[in-house]
């Protein structure tokens, strides 16, 4: 009898010890207010959140602010009124969300931000934009040394409006110069982040000076717009390298499969960012310490590398979680928006 009691006691103790590791207190409901659900990036962020929430048995709801800060605040208030345990927000604009953070604090609702920092935030899940550009720049430099005779003349199809995209372009050039120190940016364009605008401005820039051998785009639409302008000008892709950023949808997979110059993609794994945001929400719910910036990993994918991270059946892609979860994110970014000021 005494032996049986000891066994039962030991089993109970083991079970209790295992609890914190296996099953934190889980929030019942998490609400996410995205800023622009029609964009492929956010669609995949949402997919990642849904996958992780399902895995953890959390009820997950999404509302779209559709780039309207008033709508975003109203949606967040609705979520709080409905009693969500944690709120995740991708700010439409940084100032507009400050009062919302105050309101959430007085309501005891923890908030995780996705993508952009806001004054007074507890934590934010985001990639390092500069690092993403930098490491793809290093790979582009290696490619230029090996396949382009060591020269690197870049057309940057950028977006100067946003600090995140400026950091990507800066990082790309800095990374490229570590391998090809004499690399130059021939064109620094504002492609508006959308494909038709990128196509138009690239066409004009190439007409002015087509002596480039690398097209860099701050997102996939920009790099593809640049590449299409190159093709429309009747130029061969033989001595060209196209580098995209984001990997937010299917376009880059199609391009890497079919366009000979599209060899490098700075993948930002939006699904992983969503996944990480849910984990951060759980930690906040449990009152755990979290860093102000939780970095979501990125990686340059060269050639067929994308197959390590994604399955693709010609109409949809699905992430390979084991491969993406194995990526190590840096503790902190090499440069942030604060360094631009």
């Amino acid at each position: 009898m005494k032996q049986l009691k000891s066994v039962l006691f030991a089993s109970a103790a083991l079970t209790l010890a295992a609890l914190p590791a296996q099953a934190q207190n889980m929030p019942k409901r998490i609400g996410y207010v995205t800023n622009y659900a029609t964009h492929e990036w956010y669609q995949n962020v949402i997919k990642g959140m849904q996958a992780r929430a399902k895995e953890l048995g959390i009820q997950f709801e999404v509302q779209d602010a559709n780039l309207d800060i008033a709508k975003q605040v109203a949606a967040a208030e609705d979520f709080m009124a409905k009693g969500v345990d944690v709120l995740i927000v991708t700010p439409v604009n940084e100032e507009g969300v400050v009062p919302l953070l105050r309101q959430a604090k007085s309501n005891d609702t923890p908030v995780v931000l996705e993508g952009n920092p806001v004054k007074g935030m507890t934590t934010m899940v985001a990639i390092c934009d500069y690092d993403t550009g930098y490491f793809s720049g290093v790979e582009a430099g290696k490619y230029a040394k090996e396949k382009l005779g060591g020269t690197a003349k870049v057309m940057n199809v950028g977006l100067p409006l946003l600090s995140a995209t400026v950091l990507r372009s800066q990082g790309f050039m800095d990374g490229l110069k570590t391998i090809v120190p004499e690399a130059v940016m021939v064109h620094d364009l504002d492609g508006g982040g959308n494909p038709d605008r990128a196509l138009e401005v690239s066409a004009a820039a190439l007409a002015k000076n087509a002596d480039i051998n690398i097209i860099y785009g701050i997102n996939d639409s920009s790099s593809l717009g640049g590449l299409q302008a190159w093709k429309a000008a009747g130029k061969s892709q033989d001595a060209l390298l196209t580098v995209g950023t984001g990997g937010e949808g299917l376009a880059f997979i199609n391009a890497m499969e079919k366009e000979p110059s599209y060899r490098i993609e700075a993948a930002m794994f939006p699904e992983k960012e969503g996944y990480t945001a849910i984990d951060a929400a759980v930690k906040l719910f449990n009152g755990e310490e979290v860093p102000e910036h939780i970095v979501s990993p990125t990686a340059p994918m060269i050639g067929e590398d994308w197959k390590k991270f994604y399955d693709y059946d010609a109409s949809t892609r699905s992430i390979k979680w084991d491969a993406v979860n194995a990526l190590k994110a840096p503790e902190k970014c090499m440069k942030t928006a604060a360094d631009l000021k």
Partner: protein
Amino acid sequence: MSEIVHPSPARRLAGGRLLGSSQLVLAVILAALCIAISLAAPQFYSEANVIAILRQCALVLIVASGMTMLIITAEVDLSVGASLAFVGCIGMAVLNATHSLTLGILASLAFAGGVGLVNGLVVTRLKVNSLIGTIGMMMMLQGGVYLFTREAVQNHHQLSSFTGLGAGYVGPIPMPVIFAAAIFIIAYVTLRFTTLGRYLYAVGANEKAVRLSGLRSERLKLLAFVVTGLCVGIAGMILASLMNAGQPTAGRGFELTVIAAVILGGTSLLGGRGSLFGTLLGVLVLKVIDNGIIILGWNQDLQMVVPGVVIILASYLDIVRNKANVR
């Protein structure tokens, strides 16, 4: 709807002279722009840049040809940008499913023509102001395209004939320029030399008089809406070919560029007056400014500012011309 009294032959002649002089002014502005930019940046008049400008003009000119007809009837269509994006997605999806360029083009034309037809019915049957009605259509299309596809529709068919629509050449001339020239000529001949063209002017100048003379003005307006839609169908397929994908985010602000070009070319928003030659000049001026800003390495934000200034100036010129006509 326009209530302008149909001008007498003598006044029409005077108005015609004035219109001609406004086009002359536009032509002089265009020439001055070209010379100034060329002096500052000689690459401007390189063959590659001229081709790039013409290709950029092509899409706008195709839709502006239909829009000129529509604005001459005193109506406007603000849904052309949203329709352009949707057309590309539908065309690419049909091409992927059928591997037939003909079916892809037919589907695009049917969709875009259908959008034009609905716009026309809303305006002529339901008597909704075209500005409001087509804003409604724009919103429906902008939302609807995301119900159709959340992502860009990629090219899985790899038909070379499709690639040729946007990126192909006939000799040194890009295919989109050839399409634009053909559509421009058809529209020009229709407006200038046919009875239908005269009816379109008449509907815009004085719809009541047209009705009293036994013509069905609603049908003429409906036709102008459908023609504009069909032009969007053609432009949408060319854009999809140029981008090698159907992009739901394409065409933002496209309607404003098209309308700005038409108004700048001397077509009155009140209807009854305008010419396709003026529209051609308007398109060229806008696109030369756009191109010049990049060639000169100026801040690209000016590409947003300048068309805005141009729209205001063109509207003011329109008012001045109206006053001159009345005198």
